């Protein structure tokens, strides 16, 4: 059965206009209010399905009838003309099993929960040193550039074996790659430059291995140098942009809800508080793209083989039936004492974020330490949000203490 769309077709990606600066563009929850699967239009003019319901998003991301292979001719793309940038060897985030699983399994040992737990003292040291630098001899700072960005950047550089001195270069390239307003030409140049950087680096690691992830990838004979470089780009971009934006958005949001900050101080409630921040902020506002390989009945419509779908994590994570309930605030509000563990901020299915144990550890340590060491932390000027980025976040957050 196919129901005719009852609302106008939504052009993607929706813009941040009005609404709460911590929420997704209002058009997404508005679409969700009309049904779990609605019509939308991609920048190239193709129609696709906007999947906003919690159960439906889980289905799209875990059912093998939906493909993550970006080489599929109907794979939904959010930048006009970007199809010409797709190469024959995309990173494994954009591949299906078995090749996806083959490459992912080369990395799983690096992000084991116990491995990340063993890194906690090192992460704590990085966080403490960043705060020492931020507060030395001054009383104001930009939390984004002085804390939220350096911490995950230092951590991922350490793990991968990327020289931190290069961070200005790769941060500026990743910004361009994640900017929804970049032209195809800008995207192509940034993609080439960051790939070249990782190709050079992995070649050096192959010649002179060290104790880091890139050296171990470079030493493998079952991974081509190009695939190793693509994997390095994915880890580097995913490893610092996401966590950095979560740290700055979480801090700004908590400063608006100071009565909830004690939820971070208790080791018993800190992990749950971070899950709630992940749920409410769900920084991948634009959703996760997939293409249907077969006809699938989903949320009252038939998604036809060859149609694109966007799985909207942010609306799924606001489902009142899953995350609401008596005694808790509405799901578009912060409630650090809510059970948010079912959230989909890291995605779902076989592509679910590989680095999530690391992200959790970094967020727990960074936020707990920040508010413990600076109990008087408060805003000190106008904040700037990254509304132009595919990974939502903050450009600046002036603070004093």
């Amino acid at each position, binding site marked *: 059965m196919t129901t005719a769309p009852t609302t106008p077709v939504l052009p993607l990606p929706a813009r941040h206009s009005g609404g709460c600066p911590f929420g997704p563009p209002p058009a997404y929850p508005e679409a969700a209010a009309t049904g779990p699967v609605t019509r939308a239009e991609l920048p190239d003019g193709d129609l696709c399905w906007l999947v906003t319901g919690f159960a439906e998003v889980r289905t799209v991301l875990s059912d093998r009838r939906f493909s993550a292979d970006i080489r599929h001719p109907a794979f939904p793309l959010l930048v006009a003309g970007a199809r010409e940038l797709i190469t024959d060897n995309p990173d494994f985030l954009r591949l299906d099993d078995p090749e996806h699983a083959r490459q992912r399994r080369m990395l799983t*040992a690096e992000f084991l929960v116990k491995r990340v737990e063993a890194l906690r003292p090192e992460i704590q040291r990085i966080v403490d040193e960043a705060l020492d630098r931020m507060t030395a001899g001054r009383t104001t700072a930009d939390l984004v550039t002085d804390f939220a960005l350096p911490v995950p950047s230092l951590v991922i550089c350490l793990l991968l074996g990327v020289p931190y001195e290069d961070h200005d270069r790769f941060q500026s390239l990743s910004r361009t790659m994640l900017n929804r307003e970049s032209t195809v030409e800008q995207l192509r140049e940034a993609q080439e430059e960051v790939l070249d950087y990782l190709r050079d680096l992995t070649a050096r690691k192959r010649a002179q291995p060290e104790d880091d992830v890139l050296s171990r990838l470079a030493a493998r004979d079952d991974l081509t140098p190009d695939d190793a470089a693509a994997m390095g780009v994915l880890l580097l971009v995913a490893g610092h942009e996401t966590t950095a934006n979560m740290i700055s958005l979480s801090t700004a949001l908590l400063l608006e809800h100071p009565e909830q900050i004690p939820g971070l101080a208790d080791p018993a409630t800190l992990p749950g508080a971070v899950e709630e921040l992940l749920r409410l902020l769900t920084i991948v506002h634009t959703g996760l793209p997939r293409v249907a390989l077969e006809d699938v009945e989903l949320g009252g419509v038939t998604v036809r083989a060859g149609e694109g779908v966007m799985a909207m994590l942010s609306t799924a994570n606001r489902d009142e039936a899953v995350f609401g309930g008596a005694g808790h605030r509405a799901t578009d509000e912060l409630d650090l004492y809510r059970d948010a563990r079912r959230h989909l901020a890291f995605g*779902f*299915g076989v592509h679910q974020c590989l680095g999530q144990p690391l992200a959790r550890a970094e967020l727990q340590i960074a936020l707990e330490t920040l508010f413990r060491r600076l109990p008087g932390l408060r805003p000190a000027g106008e904040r700037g949000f990254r509304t132009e980025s595919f990974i939502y976040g903050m450009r600046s957050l002036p603070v004093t203490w």
Partner: protein
Amino acid sequence: MQVSVDRDRCCSSGMCVTNAPEVFDQDDRDSLVRLRQTVLLPQQFDDVRLASELCPGRAITVTGDEPARTGA
């Protein structure tokens, strides 16, 4: 209530270890899920149900459970 794991479906997200560390482990050799215990205690049932529900690879199966419980 019993729990079983399908290692072929495991994608090493670590969700099970995060939510029920007494019951699940990640194998040092291949990073795939491994049961630390096969007999569950009643006080572990909720965590194991959650781990099964949240497993992104649907690799964890719970059997012999009482009638379905829903919600948080």
